[in-house]
Structures are given as structure tokens and as C-alpha cells.
């Protein structure tokens, strides 16, 4: 049993607080990903769980024990570092066996575990090499193998894929997800790449400036972000925002000199007395269409003109970057769309999928 509780966990460096009293419950065998921009405190949180940083206040509970003062080696954890941290003077075998040797495991058990891990990770032929003779992807596998042989209850991974090229990163993403299923252990993974977070996690923790903004499943985060930060951070290309004011008792919003309809779930979520309230309307790039889709209620759409500044063909889709009503937007349309830079194109915005945020607090309505 290796559920983990972070209770009012805080980290300060001198007068600077980098993690602010965060609470988080991580279930046993869960794959949880901490995501956020640089400096949001995600790595510091992971390092506190690992025992590499002192906890300034609050409690860290692994299983049913408060481990604030337990040294890293006694926390039943293994960690994979961003730069792999393989011992350069030891062979791959020795790197993987080292943790077990320090725990005085019998030679035959060490041998069995290292060979098993090497088989799973497809590095059996590299066991006698030194790390410097390995490629980035191979080093990454050795680092994973070193963590695996210890059979820890919790795996901590600190941006393990950020040094790999794009193709290898995609492949390793799938490998790590499979590994999680196979090993049946708790994974806590830190990344700044929201694609990694979306594709791998059971639940994602979105952090900014040392605060947790939202904890939820990837799809829930995408569909129901609690504030503008989460809405903008999750999803690529990111959500488009338009400054609007609530009109007609909350059934629509004013955007410039136009009125756009609001779906019932948003108008019902607006508090009483919201007339003229300054808000931000959020529309994801895929909610702009060249022609009306069959499954969308025409009453919940609005035609909008866009000046295309850049068209990025992605193969399966086309990203149009441009200006719409004075705002910079990105629309994701069919690759067959002929619009190119300098064109003016009319797009249909599907407002039934829109998000609405308070301009001042940035909190979402209706989620």
C-alpha cells in the first residue's frame, strides 16, 4: 500500500516560498503527473516526496507513516532524473545493481532482477557498456531500469523525456505507460509538456507559482478547466480568449459590436446581477469550422471573419493563425481548407462548447 498524502506541504528558501501549503491525495498505483510552467514548484514538490529537499512545513505521508524526517533510502521510492544521473564510472549492469548491492541483496537475486529489467527495457545487450557509450534513449532506459530493479512502491520521474528527440519521446511515452501497467506501482511524474501529461496520466495536477490550480483526469481538465490558466495551459494549440461582457440577462455576451449566444450551462452558472460583467470567452481552436457541422445547433454558432496571418499545415489538419475581432486566434480546420496568409476567411464558431471566465478572478463559470 503506497498511497501518498501531501498535507499543507510548504517549501521556503529563505524568504521565498516556492510551494504554498499544497494538499494532494495520490492513490496507490496511480499514475499522477505534475505539470506547469518553469518555476511552478512541481520539481520541488517531487524532490520533497523523494526526501531530497527538507519540508518547511506540513506533512508528507506515504502509506500510513509521516515520512518528513525519513531519509530517501528508507522511503521505498526510486527516482529517474532529467539528466539520468547514471554513475559514469560504472557499467550499465553495475549502475542497475548498485542500489540492491547497497541493500546487501544476494548476488543471484540481483542478477535475476537486473537481467529481467534489462529484458523488459531491451537493454540486455548493453549491460557491459559504460553510460558514455550509450545514446540518449538507451541512457533513459538504463535510468528506468535502475529504478525498476529496486521494485519500489513509488516511482518518481523528473522530466525524464525532456532530453530526448521528438520521435524517441513519443516512443518512450508509450513505453513508460506500459511499464506503469506492468509494474503495478505508484508513478509520480513531473513535466512541463502538457502533451506528456495528457497522454500518460491517470490524473494531472496543474501547478503555477507554487499553488495547485486543478487536479483531475486529462479529459476533465480539457473539458472543464477551473480557470483561465488551466484552460490556456492544457491543450495544444492553446485555447483562444475573447474579452466579452454579459448581455441579455446572461443568455448572450457582447464581443465588440456583436452579440454571441451563450449555452444554457454557462448562462445558468452566472451569478445574479451579472449584467455587463466583464468576462473572457474561451474557444478551443477545434471549435472554429469552415462550414456548419451537422451535430451543432445553428442557434449556438456565430459567423466570424478572420484575417489569416499564417497557415500551418500539420498533415491531418491545418492551423490558421490570424486576427479575429482584434484578438489573435488559432483555428484548427480541415487540411483541405484553401486559406493562406493574407486571406480573409469566414469561420463558424461553435459556442455550445465555449468556456466563460470572470475577467477579474479568471475563475470559470459552469465547470
Amino acid at each position, binding site marked *: 500500500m503506497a498511497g501518498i498524502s501531501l498535507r499543507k506541504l510548504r517549501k521556503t528558501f529563505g524568504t521565498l516560498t516556492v510551494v504554498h501549503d499544497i494538499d494532494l491525495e495520490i492513490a496507490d498505483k496511480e499514475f499522477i503527473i505534475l505539470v506547469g510552467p518553469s518555476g511552478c514548484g512541481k520539481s520541488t514538490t517531487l524532490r520533497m516526496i*523523494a526526501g531530497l529537499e527538507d519540508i518547511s512545513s506540513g506533512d508528507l505521508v506515504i502509506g500510513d507513516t509521516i515520512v518528513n524526517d525519513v531519509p*530517501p533510502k528508507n522511503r521505498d521510492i526510486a527516482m529517474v*532524473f532529467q539528466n539520468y*544521473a547514471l*554513475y559514469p564510472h560504472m557499467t550499465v549492469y553495475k549502475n542497475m545493481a548498485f542500489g540492491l548491492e*547497497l541493500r546487501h541483496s544476494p548476488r543471484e537475486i540481483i542478477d535475476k532482477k537486473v537481467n529481467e529489467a534489462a529484458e523488459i527495457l531491451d537493454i540486455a545487450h548493453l549491460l557491459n557498456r559504460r553510460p558514455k557509450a550509450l545514446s540518449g534513449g538507451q541512457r533513459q532506459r538504463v535510468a528506468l531500469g535502475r529504478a525498476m530493479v529496486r521494485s519500489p512502491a513509488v516511482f518518481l520521474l523528473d522530466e525524464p523525456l525532456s532530453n530526448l528527440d521528438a520521435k524517441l519521446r513519443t516512443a518512450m511515452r508509450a513505453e513508460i505507460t506500459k511499464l506503469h501497467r506492468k509494474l503495478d506501482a505508484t508513478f509520480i511524474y513531473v513535466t512541463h509538456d502538457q502533451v506528456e501529461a495528457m497522454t500518460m496520466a491517470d490524473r494531472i495536477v496543474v501547478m503555477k507559482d507554487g499553488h495547485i490550480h486543478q487536479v483531475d483526469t486529462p479529459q476533465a481538465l480539457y473539458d472543464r478547466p477551473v480557470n483561465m490558466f488551466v484552460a490556456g495551459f492544457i491543450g495544444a494549440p492553446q485555447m483562444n480568449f475573447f474579452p466579452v461582457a454579459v448581455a441579455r440577462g446572461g443568455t448572450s455576451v457582447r464581443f465588440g459590436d456583436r452579440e454571441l449566444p451563450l449555452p444554457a450551462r454557462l448562462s445558468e452558472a452566472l451569478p445574479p446581477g451579472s449584467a455587463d460583467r466583464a468576462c473572457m470567452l474561451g474557444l478551443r481552436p477545434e471549435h472554429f469550422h469552415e462550414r456548419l457541422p451537422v451535430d451543432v445547433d445553428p442557434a449556438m454558432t456565430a459567423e466570424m471573419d478572420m484575417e489569416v496571418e499564417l497557415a500551418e499545415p500539420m498533415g491531418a489538419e491545418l492551423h490558421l493563425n490570424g486576427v479575429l475581432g482584434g484578438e489573435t486566434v488559432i483555428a484548427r480546420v480541415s487540411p483541405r481548407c484553401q486559406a493562406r496568409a493574407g486571406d480573409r476567411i469566414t469561420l463558424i464558431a461553435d459556442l455550445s462548447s465555449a468556456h466563460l471566465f470572470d475577467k477579474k478572478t479568471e475563475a470559470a463559470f459552469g465547470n
Partner: protein
Amino acid sequence: MSIDAMPAPAALKRPRRRVNWGLITTYVIVILVTLTMLAPFIWMISASLKLDRDVFAFPIQWIPENPRWENFVEIWTKIPLGLFVMNTFQLTIIVTILQLLTSSFAAYAFAKLRFPYRNALFLAYIATIAMPWQVYMVPQFVMMRGFGLTNTLTALVCLQAFTAFGVFLMRQFYMSIPDELCEAARIDGMSEYGIWWRIMLPLSMPAISTLTIFTFVTTWNDFLGPLIYLTKTEVKTIQIGIRMFISQYTQEYGLIMAASVVSLIPVLIVFLALQRFFVEGIASTGLKG
């Protein structure tokens, strides 16, 4: 356009090679500097094979007509040179080992451990490099005399076992080793002593070789320290032992030079053995050679 359709390349012109005067000047300067550095050594070897009266003969006879190989036999019989060599070896080896241990140990703490006032303490320690030994030589001697350590090699061992320079050199090297290696080792279950011994030391061979050479050469060649502390013949080191060839009325330069050549051999061996790491160490510790 297919490959066949490509036009044939025009005949390439090769520019005439010009004489690189800059490079030639650099070589000439480097050769001159090398000769200037080597000349005293060659003179010493040449003088070690001469009679006293021929040593300062001018013009210098670089290759003696009748080399006096006996000089190299006499030095062992005229003074107890064997004893001096043994003393020097004993002192140098103990000091070198102790310096390596204390320096790398302290450097590990300064580079990889977090404790209050770490940087202030390090700065204060490093600042002692700026203090010339001559300033505190006398009070140190008085202190050692108080401990009853004059005329013992222990006095010199005590004085030279700790060095701010060594700590500085090792710390700079340790700083270049990623912290994550220590952290990985901590998670693997190693103690701080274990990390120092099994991770940091094996990875710092260039810095260790550099410090070994510096310490070995300095201690082996040290003249002033032994001159102050060692007056009895039984404990003298080779550098002050050689002075016994100089008496009130005679200076046996041939023998002095022969003994100097002998005393140079261990330094040369250590340097040549560790030279490969030394060059690497100088480069990686950011020190200018």
C-alpha cells in the same frame, strides 16, 4: 533536375599557398622559451659530471671531456644521502596522502552538502591562501616547539596535511559533477561517506592527480620548512641535506649538482606517471597551467 542534367563542375582554382609568418614567429618564440627553460637543467646535468673547478668554467662546456661519474657514487658516501632520501620519501608520501584525504573530504562538504554559513566558511578558509607563510612562520614555530615537535618530521606533517589550495582545487572540480549523481546515490541508499568514497573520488581522478603532483613536488622540494624545523642530521630531508656539501671554506658544486639530479628523479617519475590526468585536471578545474 536529375543528376544527369546537372552541368559539369567548372575546374576549381586552388589559391597559392602563402607563407604563414605569424605561425613561424610563434614557433620561433616557443622554441626560444623552451630552450631558456631547459638550459638550467642541462647545465645542472652537465655540472654533475664535472670537477668543482670546471663547473663555472667559461665558455660553458656542455658535454664534459672526461665525465666524472664518480660524483654519483661519492654523494652517497660523503653525506648520509640515503637517509635523507628516505626521510624525504616518508614526509612527502604521508603529506601527500593526508592532503588528498583532507582536501577532498572538505571539498565534498563545501561542494555538495548544505549547512549554515557554508559559503562564508569557505571564503574565510580560501582567504588564508592570500596570507604569506612568512607572516605566521615564527608564531607557528613557537607553537610547534611548545608541542615538543621540533626536529621531528611530525611537525612538518602537521603543518602541511591541510591546505586551503587543495580544498579549493577539489571543490571546483566537485562543483562540475552534477548534484543529481549524489542524489541518485542517496536514494540508492548510500551514506555521505559512501558517496564521497564510491562516487566522488573515482570521478575526480584528474583533480586528484593534479593535487598529487602539486603536493608531491612542493613537499619534496620544500627547503624553508625543513630548514626551520629540522636541524638534526637524522631527520633532515634531501633538500637541506645537500647543503652539507657546502662548508665554511669549500663548496662541492659537482656533488651538489649530482645530488640535485638524483633528487629530481622521483619528481619526474610522479609527474610523468600522472601527466595525462594532470593536463586534463588543469583544463577541467579551470586553472591556468
